[in-house]
């Protein structure tokens, strides 16, 4: 069963007395178990709308979104999912430990196993010494680490990360890469959006490029190797053209 299946997804935002804005327009893709997929696109391409629909934050206007075979709007679908939002915002009046305890309890965890998991995760993201400091006293990078820890709570089989490295310093980025590598070894499926193409190239198995709400290209990094100068070059040329330049070249 695929962790993510998206079929003919349409997301529209309705406006009073104006035609609706179509953010996602007939998007279809699948993500296989254990795969690491980078979801790329310029600002306004429809990445966040797609991720919001995957997480059930936004009902689809049309089409189907399934996580592990369940509709994304079904709360049970999120039992195996960890999510890191674009901007790491957590209650300024709770500590990282209390934040993780809240999310852990909402996940259905409790007692000693939850405490052990929180301590291990805060240790893993190098926040063990700040676990009892209020979030409002933490830096943006530290809050992002709290976010990474909460995303890993409950041992998810699918990680959905939106703008994964935003706000992290170079050391934080390296730690994140190491963490994702550990998750890959454990067989976790990872689906993430990012503007940092070097990072995408270093982590992903496959990339999806979305433009104006439509999927215009999808390739494994192995397919791209030797055929493009760099991922960045390929991404920019494809988005500027509005279609997959490799397919065009192959057809020519």
């Amino acid at each position: 069963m695929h962790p993510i299946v998206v079929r003919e997804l349409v997301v529209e935002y309705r406006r009073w007395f104006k035609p609706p804005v179509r953010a996602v327009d007939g998007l279809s893709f699948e993500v296989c178990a254990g795969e690491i997929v980078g979801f790329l696109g310029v600002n306004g391409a429809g990445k966040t709308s797609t991720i919001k629909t995957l997480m059930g934050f936004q009902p689809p206007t049309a089409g189907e979104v399934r996580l592990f075979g369940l509709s994304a709007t079904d709360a049970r679908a999120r039992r195996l999912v960890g999510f890191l939002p674009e901007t790491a915002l957590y209650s300024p009046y709770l500590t990282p430990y209390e934040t993780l305890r809240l999310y852990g309890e909402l996940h259905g965890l409790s007692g000693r196993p939850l405490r052990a998991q929180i301590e291990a995760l805060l240790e893993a993201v190098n926040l063990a010494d700040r676990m009892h400091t209020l979030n409002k006293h933490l830096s943006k990078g530290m809050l992002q680490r709290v976010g990474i820890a909460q995303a890993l709570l409950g041992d998810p089989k699918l990680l959905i990360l939106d703008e994964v490295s935003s706000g992290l310093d170079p050391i934080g980025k390296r730690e994140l890469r190491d963490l994702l590598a550990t998750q890959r070894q454990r067989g976790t499926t990872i689906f993430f959006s990012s503007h940092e193409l070097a990072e995408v190239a270093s982590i992903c198995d496959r990339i999806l490029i979305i433009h104006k709400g439509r999927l215009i290209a999808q390739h494994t990094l192995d397919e791209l190797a030797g055929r493009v100068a760099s991922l960045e070059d390929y991404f920019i040329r494809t988005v500027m053209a509005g279609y997959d330049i490799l397919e065009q070249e192959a057809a020519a």
Partner: protein
Amino acid sequence: MTRTWQVARALMVAGLLETVRRKEVYVLLILSALLTGGAAAFRVFGVQGLEIFVKDVAFTAVGIMTTILTVFIAARQIPDELQRRTIYPLMARPITRGQLLIGKWATATLTAAVAFLTLTLANTLLLASLGITLKPIFVQYVLLKLLGIGWLCAFVIALSVYLTPPATITLSLILAFGSGAFGRLLLMAHWEHDLSVLWLNLLYGILPHYDYFDMSKKVVFDWDLAPWGVLGAMAGYAVLSGTAWLFIGWLRFRKQTL
């Protein structure tokens, strides 16, 4: 049900911690200090013959403060999560929007109930220090007020998913403080302008009645205990009407884009 309780408990613990750390508790302490300060002033001049007046002022003050605090606490539960975008990691967990709504209602109710009980304790100590004792109906007053707080939180949370926070607070305060007056206006319309009994009952039934939950005047005038069946009926009204308001809120919240 167990899962909903687990969600509500987690949110209540976090909500109480936040309330304490937001320093909102200081507002309570200041209000309690004002009540005690008022008592000190009365002690200077003595309260002989003024017992009813002192009780009336004290219970009215507690009632007004409780209503304002309850409305402000409940009105920010959902909008704050949306504004701070903390709703995303919350709803990324395997919980339904209905469970979140119930959890937020429970958080607001618990927080407002703690505030009311703190003010009531200060009020009782104040009256005791002046040698004023309260009759057993005071217990019924407290129970009914707690029911009213739960009902008011459901009403305000339902409004908060439809309206902006300032609009929610304004409308809630108007309806909370004016609910008794609206009922009287309807009766006047019935007497003076021949409003039919059917319309009178229909409109009166639809209007939110926070005024039902206030027994303070009966405490002030040392009434005997009200029949417990009346309190049971009030509990029934609170549960049914409160559930209806939460359901109305859920109808919008379940489809809302976060």
